[in-house]
């Protein structure tokens, strides 16, 4: 796929927040990259540097093979959308969407047709004459995206579009983003904290920590084989056991010995796995005492105290233990990840 936006060893700093250093990646037309990372990792700074609101101290940004590093925002064909949708308060919805068209001297009924078309695609045609302050959160998001589409951008940069939205609204926004993908297929970069949104939307995921792009790959790869301890905790590896590896697959931990497929580096480190990395079975080789049972929408997790400390496992079967029961559990070898070092 032809890269629509390329970032090459980019570095930038913005006020007190972490400076970006040596970041390189590219996103093809129609592809959606999600940027994950703890807050203050520089995700927004990276987005604003691509958009042109922050000056890169070194490195290059190319959009459709054109070097835009030194160009002002309006000449980059990259539309940046703020966290909560920002509409022009003095213009109606139709006028907001028409704004980019006016700038590109699209006139007369060609423009009004295009506006109607865009509003139609976002299913908000009936809001055409409304003023922004009279719209609901979801409607404002759709207008903002429709307006972005009107600029027919080559690159779409969405800064935390889901933050602060209730589940129903998140679904609505995800749907709107897909429409954008389908209609003008810009290269899209979305910054978010939410793993579900990342998994549902992303063609690829990039993890940013302290201003460095630590890992980039398809969702499954990043979610199951995090390349560092921080990424692992970020993508949901909540259980950590201190362990020693002998280099050929045997791992010694406080709760017992176990094998891991594939060779690992020898030496002490920590073994990490998600709540679905183990399950309660009557003939499990490990023992633990249940301390709490929490039911979350869509999943039940059991918190148990083992020789190696607190662990949290997802429970599949209907039977639920009571806090205080002694249970046995087994670990799925292929879902464990070992990281050497402290």
């Amino acid at each position: 796929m032809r890269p629509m936006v390329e970032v090459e060893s980019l570095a930038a700093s913005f006020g007190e927040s972490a400076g970006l250093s040596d970041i390189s990646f590219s996103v093809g037309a129609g592809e959606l990259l999600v940027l994950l990372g703890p807050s203050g990792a520089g995700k927004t700074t990276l987005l604003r540097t691509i958009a042109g609101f922050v000056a890169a101290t070194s490195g290059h940004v190319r959009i459709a093979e054109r070097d835009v590093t030194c160009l002002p925002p309006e000449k980059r064909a990259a539309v940046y959308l703020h966290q909560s949708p920002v509409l022009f308060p003095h213009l109606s919805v139709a006028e907001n969407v028409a704004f980019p068209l006016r700038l590109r001297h699209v006139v007369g009924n060609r423009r009004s047709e295009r506006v109607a078309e865009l509003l139609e695609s976002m299913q908000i045609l009936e809001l055409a004459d409304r003023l922004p302050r009279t719209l609901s959160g979801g409607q404002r998001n759709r207008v903002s995206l429709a307006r972005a589409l009107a600029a027919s951008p080559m690159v779409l940069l969405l800064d935390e579009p889901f933050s602060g939205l209730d589940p129903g609204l998140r679904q609505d926004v995800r749907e709107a983003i897909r429409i954008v993908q389908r209609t003008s297929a810009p290269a899209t970069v979305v910054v978010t904290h939410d793993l579900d949104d990342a998994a549902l939307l992303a063609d690829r995921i990039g993890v940013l920590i302290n201003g460095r792009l630590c890992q980039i790959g398809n969702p499954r790869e990043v979610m199951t084989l995090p390349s560092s301890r921080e990424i692992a905790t970020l993508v949901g590896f909540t259980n950590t056991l201190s362990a020693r590896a002998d280099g050929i697959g045997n791992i010694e931990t406080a709760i017992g010995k176990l094998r891991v497929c594939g060779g690992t580096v020898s030496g002490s480190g920590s073994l990490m796995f998600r709540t679905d990395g183990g399950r309660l079975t009557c003939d499990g080789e490990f023992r633990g005492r249940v301390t709490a049972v929490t039911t979350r929408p869509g999943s039940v997790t059991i918190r148990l105290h083992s020789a190696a400390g607190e662990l949290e496992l997802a429970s599949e079967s209907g039977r639920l233990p009571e806090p205080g029961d002694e249970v046995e559990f087994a670990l799925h070898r292929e879902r464990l990840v070992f990281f050497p070092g402290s």
Partner: protein
Amino acid sequence: MTVDKHSTVGLILPALIALPPLIGLGYAVTASLGLVGVAPGGSTSRYLREVIANHTTWAALGWTLWITIASTFLATLAAVFLAATFRAESKADRFGRIVAVLPLPVPHVVAALSSLLILGQSGLLARVAHSAGIISTPAQMPPLVYDRLGVGLIFALVWKEIPFLALIAFTVLKNRGGMLEETARSLGANGIHTFFYATWPVLWRGMLPGIVAVATFVAGSYETAALLAPSRPLALPLLTMERYTATAMDLRPGAFVLAGFTLLLSLAAVAAYGATIGRTDRLQ
């Protein structure tokens, strides 16, 4: 649109506005040292010493200070009282707030003229007193204009200051008053207690920058003093103008000393304003 390009421009432009007063101060200082102006000789502190030694200078300064403090104090008192009275959203309250603010755009010279017509020795007040039989000739009327206490002048200045301070008081109470007072009330404080422990602390901090601004403006006001101030002691602006237009050449540099001095005072006011703004900012 990087930040640094703008900060330099953002710095130069405001500095341009401060240029006229600074140039004025520069010229006033050089002229008062005799370096420039009518009889430019070598730099001499003669004029400076003459003004400082002259008792009319201190009388003028003292008197203008008295007028400034008296009028600003009364206006603040009235503004706070108005703010406390017309608090609610009823029609009467809103009407009260509008009337209180009405004189804001009326020029100072108009207030001074009205004060002259009302409080003059033979003004409206004297005629009311006459028709009420309290006095028979104007001479029996206590002098309220061109008088040592400057009552007429204070009346005009207060009439002009109240709208400005009241507006600030209304705004401060609307934005920051509410919650604090409700908590005080819920803790059983009666009207007066609430005022002193909840309303007043917020109010005076919020009004402080406005009070400093108004005091500075009143101290420098020329037209009100020209119409209402006494011939002795001369108000500072009048003394400055009298010396500036004096035909005797050695009196003129004294005007520059006084002008320079008042400009320095306004610099101090800016510092005071900065300090109060700083404090109230930290409060928000």
